[in-house]
């Protein structure tokens, strides 16, 4: 991670922290130190929207669970006026439907709160650069969401069938990420460049956000029931 710290505070991404636990915010802030420039903190949906609109950060580090509407409420509200602000979802929650909801609202990635500081700083930088960040858990959720009962959706294809399924390559990439591979390791394993891995992941993110596949919503709904 030394290359990131080398960029110094001047080139560091400007970050807003949104989390309802003050202790967690101060912890993250202290750990990230000079790797990012924290321009503000908020602990609720409405103040977060106001703060983001005022400071226009590069990346918003957003808790999935927030009082007053949840993380996806913040994203959909901010995206309307400031489509350039990028979101990285951060959560202790494992509930797949919550994570998928935030991603579909427009977050560029999802990491769990158990992530190491170096990895978090790296993820923030990736999101700031416009890439997608998939933790191994998110990769698992996405594979699950796109894989469940493949035959049933063929009857009712959405308007753009290409959005409804993952390519073989995308699936391979996701599988490796789910196994804990870093992007670099994925690239080496599949004999492709790092940039290609990035583009596969971004493409998966796009499909996840744009697919009108009701498979996806039904999958989430089934999860909620169990």
């Amino acid at each position, binding site marked *: 991670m030394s290359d990131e710290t080398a960029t110094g505070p001047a080139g560091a991404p400007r970050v807003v922290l949104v989390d309802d636990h003050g202790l967690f915010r101060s912890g993250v802030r202290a750990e990230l130190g000079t790797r990012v420039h924290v321009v503000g903190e908020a602990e609720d949906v409405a103040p977060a929207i106001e703060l983001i609109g005022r400071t226009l950060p590069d990346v918003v580090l957003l808790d999935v669970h927030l009082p007053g509407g949840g993380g996806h409420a913040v994203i959909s509200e901010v995206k309307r006026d400031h489509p350039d602000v990028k979101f990285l979802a951060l959560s202790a929650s*494992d*509930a797949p439907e919550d994570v998928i909801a935030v991603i579909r609202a427009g977050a560029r990635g999802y990491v769990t709160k158990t992530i190491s500081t170096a990895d978090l700083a790296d993820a923030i930088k990736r999101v700031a650069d416009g890439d997608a960040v998939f933790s*191994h*858990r998110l990769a698992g959720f996405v594979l699950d969401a796109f*894989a469940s009962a493949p*035959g049933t959706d063929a009857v009712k294809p959405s308007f753009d069938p290409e959005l409804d399924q993952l390519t073989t390559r995308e699936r391979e990439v996701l*599988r490796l990420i789910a*196994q*804990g591979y870093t992007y670099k390791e994925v690239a080496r394993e599949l004999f492709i460049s790092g940039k290609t891995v990035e583009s596969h992941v971004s493409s998966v993110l796009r499909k996840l956000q744009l697919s009108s596949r009701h498979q996806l919503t039904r999958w989430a709904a089934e999860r909620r029931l*169990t």
Partner: protein
Amino acid sequence: MNDDPHWHGPGWQGQRGPGPGWQGQGGGPGWRHHGAGPGWQGPGPGPGWQGQPPRPGDAPDWAARRYRKWRQRGDGEPLRRHPEDRLAGGIASGLGAWRGYSPTTVRIALAVAALISDGWAVPFYVLGWLLIPVKGDETTIAQRARHDSRGVVLALALASLLAVFLFLAGALNDAGIATFAWPQVFSIAGLTLIWRNAPEDERAAMHRLVQPLESLTASGADARRATRLRLAGAAVLLAVGLGWLFSLHGGTQLLQPLGGFLFVAAGIVLLLGPWWLRIARDLMVERQARARAEERADIASRVHDSVLQTLALIQRRSDDPQAVIQLARAQERELRSWLFEGRAPGDADVSSFAEGIRQIQRDVEARHGVPVEVVTVGDCPIDEHLSALLAAAREATVNAAKWSGAAVISVFAEVEPDSVSTTVRDRGKGFDPAAVPGDRKGVAESIRGRMSRHGGEAILQSAPGEGTKVTLTMPRAAAGPTKPQAPSEGQRR
């Protein structure tokens, strides 16, 4: 009163607290039985309220048999009033729980009994209220009332007042109402005692029952006027209806009673409708509040059992980072599985493949102290081939934990329509697979052999300094039915 007598006394339950000797309706002290029941433990220290010690040995065998049979139906608890589901005294819900009927059924039965017994069921209900203790309490209201001499006097006074009134009414008229009213002389006396001696919450229940009448005297002229109007309307309807009914004689037409009934029914609805609705609503609100309170208590106890205990342990072992991490991991996993998968901690039901993988995670983390990151995609029930796969995966994970020296092990399991695969990967030391001596059975037998015997395969990739990756793949035995598109493909060909 053709109800069966209920035997229930201190002797039968094997409990020692002073309890009522009997309750229920119909019959008297003559059928009270105390005897050698299954749980009999000798005479209780406190005799029943009657002051008679139970006498062992005079219960016939059939009674004991029958009693056992009864107990099997209900909740196995002694008969108690259930305050949480009561309309009045909680007798109906208590009887229901005791005998395994729904409270509503018991309530209907009681109402029918009240009708066909000319109202005699009501004083017996009140008697039960006096003599049966509330669940979780051993003192009856009657026991308390014994010391309430003023209450006894008041009860007798009220009862005799009503009796005199009824005598007068009976002398003036031969109305059938008097038949129903006579038993209520006893009810009034009993209710007076209950009112004076019941605990606060039971008084609140009684209060709720009579509340609408109080609105007559309550503040707010509008409310008072509305109540008066309603009562007046009800009185007129009732009077007309009853008059119609009582004016009937043998020769009148068949249709006529119908009109009378309609009037009476309308009068009753007008009189009691709002009151009834209010009781039903209060009951529902109360039930919801109780459900919420129980849920809160459940969560609190679980959080206490798990999270707080773990936090305490972590504080005590703060000098041992490895132990702290292990504790925190174990707790995190447990909490997750409870919050997001709805599984109680310690609930080890390994019937699904994903659950089996998580079981491996739990065991390896607990035994070897190495965090295991698990991602599962899809799920299916376990058959013998999949349990072989699970055993192989466990072996691979344990190997990684023991030998690799990696800080974390990744396990990825995916259930696909025609196969199930599991990858166990670490970034530890790694080794040269070719250099492993042939007599080292670990990998060869327990992983490769196990997989190939069940038609699967195991691929091991490792190099010194590169970490190790074991990929296990097992075809699904029952792949046919899970592939809905297979037949159509066949036709296309």
